[in-house]
């Protein structure tokens, strides 16, 4: 890596020395201020350029250049210019930037062209603010370190601003992390103030002037790079936006060489392992809920969450500390309230959600954002503040039939500066919301209906098969049995009435009512026994009931006997009362009958129970 960049540098110098391109010389940069922030793993360059048109024609295009080895690692570039006069009124307006073809400019330089808001006429000045973020420009050096060593990185830049235009005055300041500085290139006007390194100001520079500098310093930042990040944003109109993010994280700093000793890592007070990072901080939107953090093999129990009304902070700790070159994989997921992210405009709905990862200072090499819209969404369009690769898919999820449309956005080399909002527009009617519940309801409805039909209907294949006929017959037998039972029950009830009349007799001594009761029961019992006859005949004739019919006959016979006994008792008691014999006398007379009645009654009940069990 380092060798190649040195080669780049040489090529660049060679190219610059050969360069003769007067086409851009109309513009002059009267003042250039550059600030490079390397406190994290991303080199963030902020430039303020004061452009003066010294030529005769008006110019509508401004060319930005970077050395190729930086330009290749350019992750983010935005150019804005301030409008309005006075500090308070200034508003920044973003200008469109595109990669230009480098006609006439050597290959070792990357060229970007900026369209100016209005053509710059002669003598006019314009101030441009350029923000650029580079990844992978902090080269670990040495490339492999042991656990105990500190993590040193190297930055290559040019002390002079590389530009196709002449520069009148320029300065560069590099903000280094608050740690050891191993070495830096010393040129004239070089100052180191605390952790800030200053070059310049340099006056009246030719176009394409270049003086390489190298800064070698310790970095304590986490060089966390997501090799691949898949963010799935699923919109549910039931009130939730579910975000699931799958991270493949690697530590891109100097690689660990030799042993990893947990003892040294945990040693107090001087833990060795400064080059490793333990935590990543994710700043989730406010009101994020149902947060989880897991990987392929289950939940990862090391995470902390803090939330207030402004933000939700999730401190996630991978399963193991990540040393240089170590990798890990994890998934975080959270739900967001729909009302915070979904809005309506012009008959369409749009989802307004941030594009990049919520993890701070994380570089994503390949970011795939999948926005899953509800089933039945139409007319989908996406607006993004920067160029991304777009495509559409279909995803089948809970009980889908047509599938849910998925908008897939892909972008390489994403830095936190890309965490801007994207808008996904679509049309969706609320009726579709009800389709799945209705489907479930009708599913269960059909299930129950089938059950009902199954139990009610007759599904036997052959209506004349012996088993089927036997079953029919058996049903008939059972029905008859039930009738028999109910009749016997009625008989017993009648007997009870008779007994009750006897009790009344003992209280009132009124034999007439008792006799009347006797008469009515007599006729009732006769009717019942008449009803019983055909049933008995049927049971006897039925072959299936052969093992039951003796029991039933026994039952009926017993019932008859009981009836007779009861009548006899009744007669005795009534006679006794008519003869005015004493209560004890009557009791003595009926005692033997009484015992038999009890026994019979019991037998009948047993038989009834037996039949009941069939």
């Amino acid at each position, binding site marked *: 890596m380092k060798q190649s960049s040195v080669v780049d540098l040489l090529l660049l110098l060679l190219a610059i020395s050969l360069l003769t391109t007067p086409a851009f010389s109309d513009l002059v940069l009267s003042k250039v201020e550059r600030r490079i922030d390397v406190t994290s793993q991303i080199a963030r360059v902020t430039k303020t350029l004061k452009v003066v048109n010294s030529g005769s024609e008006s110019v509508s295009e401004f060319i930005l250049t970077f050395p190729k080895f930086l330009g290749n690692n350019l992750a983010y570039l935005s150019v804005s210019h301030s409008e309005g006069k006075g500090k308070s009124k200034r508003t920044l307006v973003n200008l469109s930037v595109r990669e230009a073809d480098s006609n006439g400019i050597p290959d070792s330089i990357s060229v970007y062209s900026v369209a100016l808001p209005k053509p710059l006429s002669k003598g006019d000045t314009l101030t441009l603010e350029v923000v650029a973020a580079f990844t992978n420009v902090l080269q670990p050096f040495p490339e492999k370190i042991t656990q105990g060593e500190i993590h040193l990185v190297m930055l290559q830049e040019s002390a002079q601003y590389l530009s196709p235009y002449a520069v009148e005055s320029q300065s560069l300041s590099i903000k280094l992390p608050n740690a050891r500085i191993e070495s830096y290139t010393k040129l004239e006007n070089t100052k180191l103030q605390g952790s800030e390194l200053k070059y310049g100001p340099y006056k009246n520079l030719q176009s394409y002037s270049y003086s390489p500098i190298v800064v070698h310093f310790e970095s304590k930042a986490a060089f966390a790079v997501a090799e691949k990040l898949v963010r799935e944003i699923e919109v549910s109109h039931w009130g939730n936006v579910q975000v699931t993010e799958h991270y493949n994280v690697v530590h891109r700093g100097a690689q660990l060489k030799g042993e990893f*000793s947990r003892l040294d890592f945990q040693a107090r007070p001087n833990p060795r392992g400064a080059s490793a990072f333990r935590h990543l901080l994710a700043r989730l939107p406010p009101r994020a809920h149902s947060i989880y953090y897991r990987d392929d093999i289950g939940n990862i*129990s090391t995470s902390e969450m803090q939330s207030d009304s402004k933000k939700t902070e999730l401190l996630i700790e991978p399963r193991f500390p990540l040393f240089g070159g170590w990798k*890990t994989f994890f998934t975080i997921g959270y739900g967001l309230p729909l009302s915070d992210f979904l809005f309506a405009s012009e008959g369409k709905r749009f989802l307004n959600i941030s594009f990049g990862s919520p993890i701070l200072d994380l570089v994503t090499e390949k970011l795939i954002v999948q926005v899953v819209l509800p089933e039945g969404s139409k007319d989908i369009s996406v607006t993004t503040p920067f160029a991304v690769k777009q495509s559409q898919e279909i995803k089948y999820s809970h*009980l889908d039939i047509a599938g849910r449309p998925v908008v897939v956005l892909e972008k390489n080399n994403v830095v936190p500066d890309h965490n801007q909002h994207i808008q996904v527009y679509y049309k969706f009617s609320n009726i579709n919301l009800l389709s799945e519940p209705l489907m479930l309801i009708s599913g269960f409805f059909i299930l129950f209906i089938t059950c009902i039909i199954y139990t009610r209907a007759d599904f036997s294949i052959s209506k004349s098969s012996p088993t089927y006929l036997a079953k029919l017959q058996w049903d008939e037998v059972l029905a008859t049995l039930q009738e028999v039972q109910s009749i016997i029950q009625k008989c017993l009830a009648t007997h009870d009435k008779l007994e009750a009349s006897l*009790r009344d007799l003992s209280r009132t001594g009124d034999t007439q009512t008792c006799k009347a009761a006797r008469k009515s029961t007599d006729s009732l019992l006769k009717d019942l026994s008449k009803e019983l006859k055909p049933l008995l005949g049927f049971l006897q004739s039925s072959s299936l009931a052969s093992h039951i019919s003796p029991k039933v006959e026994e039952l009926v016979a017993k019932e008859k006997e009981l009836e007779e006994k009861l009548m006899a008792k009744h007669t005795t008691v009534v006679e006794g009362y008519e003869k005015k014999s004493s209560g004890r006398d009557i009791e003595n007379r009926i005692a033997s009958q*009484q015992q038999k009645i009890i026994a019979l009654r019991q037998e009948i009940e047993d038989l009834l129970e037996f039949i009941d069990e069939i």
Partner: protein
Amino acid sequence: MAALESPQPGTPTAMRNAFGNVLSVLILVLIGVLAFSIRLFSVIKYESVIHEFDPYFNYRVTQFLSKNGIYEFWNWFDDRTWYPLGRVIGGTVYPGLTLTAGTIWWVLNSLNIPLSVETVCVFTAPVFSAFASWATYLLTKEVKGSGAGLAAAALLAMVPSYISRSVAGSYDNEAVAIFALIFTFYLYIKTLNTGSLFYATLNALAYFYMVCSWGGYTFIINLIPMHVLLCIVTGRYSPRLYIAYAPLVVLGTLLAALVPVVGFNAVLTSEHFASFLVFIIIHVVALVYYIKGILSPKMFKVAVTLVVSIGMVVCFIVVAILVALVASSPTGGWSGRSLSLLDPTYASKYIPIIASVSEHQPPTWPSYFMDINVLAFLVPAGIIACFSPLSDASSFVVLYIVMSVYFSGVMVRLMLVLAPAACIMSGIALSQAFDVFTGSIKYQLGASSNSTDDAEDNTSTNNAPKDDASAGKTDKGEEIVKERSSKKGKKKEREPADKPSVKSKIKKKALVLPLEASIVALLLLIMLGAFYVIHCVWAAAEAYSAPSIVLTSQSRDGLHVFDDFRESYAWLSHNTDVDDKVASWWDYGYQTTAMANRTVIVDNNTWNNTHIATVGTAMSSPEKAAWEIFNSLDVKYVLVVFGGLIGYPSDDINKFLWMVRIGGGVFPHIKEADYLRDGQYRIDSEATPTMLNCLMYKLSYYRFVETDGKGYDRVRRTEIGKKNFKLTHFEEVFTSHHWMVRIYKLKPPRNRIRGRTKKLKSKTSSGLSSKSVKKNPWI
């Protein structure tokens, strides 16, 4: 059903039946919910994750199945385990569980319900325990009616023994096998009760499912023949018995032979011979009954003597052939695990690899109380209830409980087979007891209200014979209560006391107990049930829910989580090469292949004793010899589990003697005595030099002394013997947060090269330029 089809659906009995049906369905649904939800403690307290060791293998197989389909699954040769031998998974695994979960997953996904394979696997066991309780209901209903069925189902839904194997995440064969076992028994009893060929066929299919799921199917194929034999001996032979048994043997054996892991074992190994023998016997008996039917009694006697004498000869010949066959096969036709069932000391004597597994040890008494709790007391009552009256079905459950009690006494693992039997018995006991008590209470209440009415008029004391009998009995009952008010009203004791006094001509009335006694007894029964429920919930929540890959400990500053295993498996899976081989003791093989996706040398499927012994030998050898063994196996990383820092007792040092034993069983230069000082296993300064120099010791305690300056081992509660040493052939590459897992890398063979170059240097003349030496990368 009869109620539905009866012509007068309005009658009270029909209504009662319908209501009863609805109620039992509702209760069954609730039991299913209970069975499912009591097993979710592990998900709530920990997380939705696969537990322990074997489930990880099953999970991995299921993943493979869901990804590659069934045909690939049958042909799967797994090269990530048993390196360099590999393992034919499709042919050596019981596929029932995997296919079940795979099918569930497939169905759900084709309905567009996107559940992950893991989720399906985690919840398979609770779902199947709900099925198992329903199967228990069916089985017990066939034996003793639906009341007993419901009680048994409720008991089974929460029996701790079964919970221990079927909590959410415990994705093991037993989870579905218990359901299959009970369901097979149910269909057998159902066939026996109905004599329907339809159920007999279903029975064979259920048996097939059982064979697919678990090696415990041999229990079925021995228990059912035993019951058939019992029926024949006690003169209960019937055509229904024949229909229940003969198709099962024929179809069942054919189907069982379809399962690759069983194959021809279904007819070759002696576990199955009992069924064939009984198959022959039942045919002979059937023939005898047939002949008896067509011959006159006299002729029959002649025929019997004739046939018996010939039959005896034939039988002897057959038995002799069988014995010869069995004796000629290496283990006598019995597999090691089965042999240790019959002779509990067999395993510990001959097969250390079986004896080293804790679940193959005989259980202790407390574990009975822990696992089946109050059921142990209810079982005898249930057995008695089964004898009054004894039917084919109830004799089967009695036989089942007797056999399973024996087997559970041999192996802790088989407690699981006992649990359903105990639940069925206890369900019967409970339901009968409730029947008697509630019956008598109802009766007494009815009687007392009537008798107050009757008290006024003495002229006719008996308007209803029922009342009379009961009135007499209340008096009697009160006397009894006075006599022994302390008695809890066990019905069996009560019976003889009541019977003579009432002199009832009616059997039923004999079971009527005094009111107070019944109420007290009911309350006590309910308390017993409540105690059981409390115990079960406690067991499910506290004892059996730990996934064992995540450990927690409650300390003063809150819950402490030890997630070291997954930490190191994750490290292995992300930071080593895909084809690297990892050596560890076999316990961690399944987890390493499933979680870390790395090739292992040995795993929990202990099919190759020599290979395990090789790893055991390496672990018990000094560093250099171990390095050579591992290097010859192409091993790149060695993983050891070490609990000394935080006091995790089941670590490799505690398992080490088994490694020595198993290693020594194959490689005689490893002698157990070398690792013991006076027969004691120790790692302190008294330990033998062999112990202190073996690889396991070194890898476990490497730089351990630097943690506290003394090297105090919290598991062994002692300071370690050898404190400061360096590793020459291994280097530490990863140690988990609590030091529970330590991973070492084999150093490349530089020592040898250095030695050779030194020799080379000394040999060659000094004229050789120093450049050539400098090129050597090792200097």
